[in-house]
């Protein structure tokens, strides 16, 4: 907790499933793809079993999936009425504060997997460079739209 005075809300449970499913799909694809060079290399190096590289990738996937819940639990957000707080990160913890007056425009997006589990992502665009896009994934569509409408009320035409 980098800013304990701001009580953070957790992401929706659905986001945990989204993270697990996208992770599983990603590592599944990577496992299959890893089989191609592994198969090609096993022709020249006879001692290399074909399944070595895919297995390594798959093990990474299992390890990553095991930690998904911890990563999910590290996310938190708060809308104070003046600024949006987004905290995330397991090894390196970050807590980003976006003042509503600095937001340029706002997107609410929902990918196919997010739609299955009923969550969406709020994206705030600012004029900044390192953090020109602040993402808040894993909130319900209603919440995202509520925050968006609240921030929209703060938008000034010329933030500079």
């Amino acid at each position, binding site marked *: 907790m*980098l*800013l304990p005075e701001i009580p953070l809300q957790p992401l929706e449970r659905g986001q945990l499933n989204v993270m697990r499913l996208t992770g599983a799909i990603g590592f599944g694809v990577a496992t299959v793809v890893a089989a191609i060079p592994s198969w090609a290399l096993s022709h020249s190096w006879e001692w290399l079993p074909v399944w070595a590289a895919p297995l390594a990738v798959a093990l990474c996937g299992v390890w990553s999936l095991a930690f998904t819940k911890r990563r999910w639990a590290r996310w938190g957000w708060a809308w104070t009425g003046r600024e949006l707080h987004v905290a995330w990160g397991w090894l390196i913890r970050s*807590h980003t504060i976006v003042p509503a007056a600095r937001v340029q425009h706002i997107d609410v997006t929902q990918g196919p997997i997010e739609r299955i589990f009923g969550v969406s992502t709020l994206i705030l665009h600012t*004029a*900044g*460079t390192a953090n020109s896009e602040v993402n808040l994934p894993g909130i319900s569509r209603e919440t995202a739209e509520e925050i968006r409408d609240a921030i929209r009320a703060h938008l000034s035409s010329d933030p500079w």
Partner: protein
Amino acid sequence: MSGDVNDEVSEQASDVEDRGPRRVHPGTIAIDFLRRAPQTVIGLPAIAGWTSGRSIGWILLAATLLGVGMLVFTWIGWRRFTYTITEHELVIERGLLNRSRRSIPLTRIQDVSIERKPLARLFGLAEVKVETGGGEKDEAVLDSVSVAEAERLRAALRGQTSSSTIVSSAEGDAESSEASALPIIFQMSLARVVLLGMFSFSLVWIAALFGVLQFFDQFIDFGLDRARDWAEVAKDQVQARFSIAAVLAVAGLALTLGVVSGVIRTTLRDYGFTLRAGGGRFRRTRGLLTRSEVVVAMRRIQLAMVQRGPLRGAFGWNALSFQTLGGSDDPSGRQAMAPLARDDEVAAIVETAGLPPFERLPLRPVAAGHVLRSLLRAAPVPVAVAVAALVVTPLAWIGMLALLPIVGIALLQRRYHRYALRDTSLQVMRGVIAQRDWIVPYQNVQVVTLRAGWFQRRLGLASVLVDTAGASGYLSPDVVDLATPDARELAAGLVARIG
């Protein structure tokens, strides 16, 4: 297909109210052709002819055909490129097969800069660059128009009445009459430009010369791969003396070349550096062969950064740059306002820009853990290199001496990393060898991020990253390694002041 309409539009039409599409100056065709001719028209046929062993006549014929073809293509490209200034936007249409139409709302235009390269000067033309706040550089380049048209464009794109500012400067000076009427607030004499050049000698020459040395190591008998042999025969006094003399000679040569090239490069870029201010804008002109003019609107200035290099800082010289939104010819969005200036000159420019002065006294240092983190960040690589070198030669112990300054600098990091929330701005200083001061008005802080890595949490530290518009990178006014409560206070204080 707007070609039919365009035919009637005279290129030289100078009436300001003209709303029809215009083309850039036809002289551009010649410039473009001349610019590319050496490689394509002459180079390609020459290489092709030479390698296939053909006669000079064949080469000339091929060059002529290629030249005509290129001229035709350049002409088509010129014909298809039109620009229009309407009441609300600048529209640029281009392309033969892929017609593209880009409209830039006039209110979004941040900077209009005029650049005159040597070839363009020959034809009395100028290149007009239009920048908006977007990330990509040079969103619209009009290459090239007559000087009068360039000034008309600049006036029109800024929404001013342009009739008063159109002046044809036939002398080929990039400075417009409007500009030269403004008061000069900073200027660099030739002596100071040369001094700046001497400070900015490039170490590239040293690397290059040692590379050459490596290449000829058979003759000089000194090189890294021979270091082991060399160490064995080090007892041989003559050999050793010769090598040391050679190294000293090469180092001296590299230093001289570095200084000379630095002076030449800097003089080409910064000759006649003049900064004028007025009407809410800074106007900077500089350059010997390519005279460039950049306009920086004061309200687009995001922050000021004062930089002191290792050598020039010791002599009391500063470099001032402004980070602007939609920077001009500077790819990073940082504009050099005074490359070599005294404290009072910097303060005067900062004041003109409407920024609060930088005050060192009220600043407070970051947490003591910063020393440890700096040390852990700086030391491992040199130590590893020295240990690895020990395997090759025991003389690498000498290399360990190089660790002393590294450790010393790390120990000083905290002393030079200070910050404060002032009345209207965040002020940060950071860096030991290259010292930097930042003045960031609160209204230009975009996003504030608290960050703590694993090791930082063990030490009870956190960093406050301050995101601003215009430019990114390690030159951002971040406050690194604060005690966690201080970091919280700083982040909360910053956000509260943004409002």
